[in-house]
């Protein structure tokens, strides 16, 4: 695909041209950190950031999403009938998503776009979105994307890769959707032959700056039962307070809960993000909870991401290495450490060393 050169002076103008055709989202600086927000007319995303505190998953998959509306008024003919909530699936674009976060949508898609079940809300929202990735020239010390199936210049899940080459941007169109957006924005100056080389150099430099890694090559061959019974879970889970920080900030956590809420004679059925860290996530109507302790819940989170997902899809771990959970965990539980423990786990060796 071709590479377009965008002069920095033409950046805001191009955004101006697409803001009527797309609902735009991008990183915006709040009081203390950046987060993805809907951009106001004339507002440009603030690309001077490492990564946002929350992942941009909410652009496609909001924390609270109304699915149906209904009336409880028995005088109405269609009372107690679920009716689709009005939705806006008009085109939207995320300007400045990091490559790891864009790749995360592909992981989540395996769940919401399965052969047997398709989640219409997620899929329509995802299909309506064009992802313009901001290549990561300065990754954080906690980033381990290069060993988690992604990378600072990874193109997976992106429609356009935008590279900041200091005096200009290079925009590499990856899909037809991406080409279309570039055309609509009036960014049409094809870059000269040196651009590809420049991008490659910046990519190599960025990858060399990734100082953190995980080893996941052994996970698939490990016995699920042995990992489940591993002795390290007590140590790993001790500090956990079972809050939802890791799962809510994670770009690859997809779980939700469905709730009906009535107000007067009408109501809505909605879904809200849920978290496997919460006891409520698994409690049965009887009161029995199959994941009744925090050890159960912490183990579930890591086993899901690093073992069950690996086995089920044979496509790597359910993690893109963005490092958000590492940075935000109130008690410093570190998925990099746990992944390495699981990857190198040897039940026999552990049994021996304990004697």
């Amino acid at each position, binding site marked *: 695909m071709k590479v377009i050169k965008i002069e920095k002076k033409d950046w805001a103008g191009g955004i101006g041209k697409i803001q009527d055709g797309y609902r735009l989202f991008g990183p915006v600086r709040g009081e203390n950190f950046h987060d993805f927000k809907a951009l106001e007319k004339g507002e440009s995303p603030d690309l001077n950031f490492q990564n946002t505190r929350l992942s941009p998953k909410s652009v496609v998959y909001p924390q609270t999403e109304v699915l149906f509306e209904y009336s409880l008024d028995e005088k109405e003919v269609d009372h107690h009938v679920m009716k689709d909530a009005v939705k806006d699936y008009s085109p939207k674009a995320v300007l400045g998503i990091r490559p790891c976060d864009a790749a995360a949508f592909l992981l989540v898609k395996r769940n919401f776009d399965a052969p047997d079940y398709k989640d219409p809300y997620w899929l329509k929202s995802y299909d309506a979105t064009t992802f313009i990735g901001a290549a990561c020239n300065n990754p954080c010390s906690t980033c381990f994307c290069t060993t988690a199936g992604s990378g600072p210049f990874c193109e997976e899940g992106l429609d356009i890769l935008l590279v900041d080459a200091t005096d200009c941007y290079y925009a590499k169109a990856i899909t037809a959707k991406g080409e279309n957006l570039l055309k609509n924005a009036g960014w049409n100056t094809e870059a000269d032959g040196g651009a590809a080389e420049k991008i490659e150099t910046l990519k190599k430099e960025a990858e060399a700056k990734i100082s953190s890694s995980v080893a996941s090559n052994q996970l698939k061959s490990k016995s699920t039962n042995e990992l489940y019974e591993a002795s390290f879970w007590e140590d790993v889970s*001790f500090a956990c*307070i079972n809050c939802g920080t890791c799962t809510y900030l994670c770009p690859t956590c997809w779980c939700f809960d469905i709730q009906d809420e009535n107000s007067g004679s009408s109501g809505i059925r909605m879904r809200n993000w849920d978290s496997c860290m919460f006891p409520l996530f698994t409690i049965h109507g009887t009161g029995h909870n199959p994941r009744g302790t925090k050890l159960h819940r912490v183990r579930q989170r890591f086993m899901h991401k690093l073992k069950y997902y690996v086995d089920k899809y044979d496509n790597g771990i359910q993690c893109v290495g963005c490092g958000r959970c590492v940075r935000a965990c109130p008690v410093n539980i570190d998925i990099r450490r746990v992944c390495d423990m699981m990857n190198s786990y040897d039940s026999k060796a552990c049994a021996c060393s304990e004697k």
Partner: protein
Amino acid sequence: MLGYIDKIKEISKRLLDEGKVDMIIGFKKGTMPMMNEPCFVKTPDEASKLVWDSNCGINLANYLTDRKEKIGVIAKGCDSRNIVTHIIENKIKRENLVIIGVPCKGMIDRRKISAMFDAEVRQVSEEGDAIIVKGNGFEEKLKKSDLLQDNCSTCIHRNPALYDELAAPLVEEQKDIDKYADVRKIETMQPSEKWDYFDNLLSGCLRCYACRNACPLCYCPTCFVDEANPQWVGKSQDETDIRTFHFLRAYHCAGRCTDCGACERACPVGINVRAFTKKLEKDCFEMFGWEAGISIEKRPPLDTFKPDDPGKFIK
């Protein structure tokens, strides 16, 4: 405070060696700058992994709730006050605890420090009263007293309220502290200003419940927000539900909160959750002369009646 660690290790090792405790609850070194991880130690050899520095802000009383073992717990001033509260509320038995008291000089605020630099803070160390912050291409030596967590800067109970062993000589308590200046500022606001203040304060709340779960007081088997029948609070991002959670949680902590700052420290989006609890802490102090967790002999004001209680309505 770095000097305390040898003594903490020595005491922990001894208690485990002599079989006085089954485990020690303390901190091990974290994988991130300015972070340590709460941990347990069950053998004398493992005691060497314990650490103590200005990044031990998590309240370890939270890790004692309903435990049955004999536990040695490392406790700074606020932790010890929450241990006292736990004992009063029957969440732990006094005789099962050996409290290793740590006179505290305050914990540093990792968010404040990160916000001071444009580039990522990659390494933080301490030397006496100085904090050395390093990142790619910069290194700065800062005064620890300027970097304290907000609750630590106004703390007047740095020494443990209850202890069996001491890791260091008691420290001088801070004097002439205006502990409630921030609360008074909110109290004097007009109703509309207050509304805006709290609206803005909670605007980023994700309902991850890190504040609640980091709090040693929040040990209800089922929190009111998790009750299904009746369901007191909705589950969505509805702002009324979010406010209800925060207001009610704060009221549940009235007369019990020690202003340890665990809630604020835990919040992933930096909400000053203490804006709620501190007002109630101030009211309890002004109305009942009460500070939580000072003595296991006294009942908290909200579970006792005294003829000289304020508020005529109850007499």
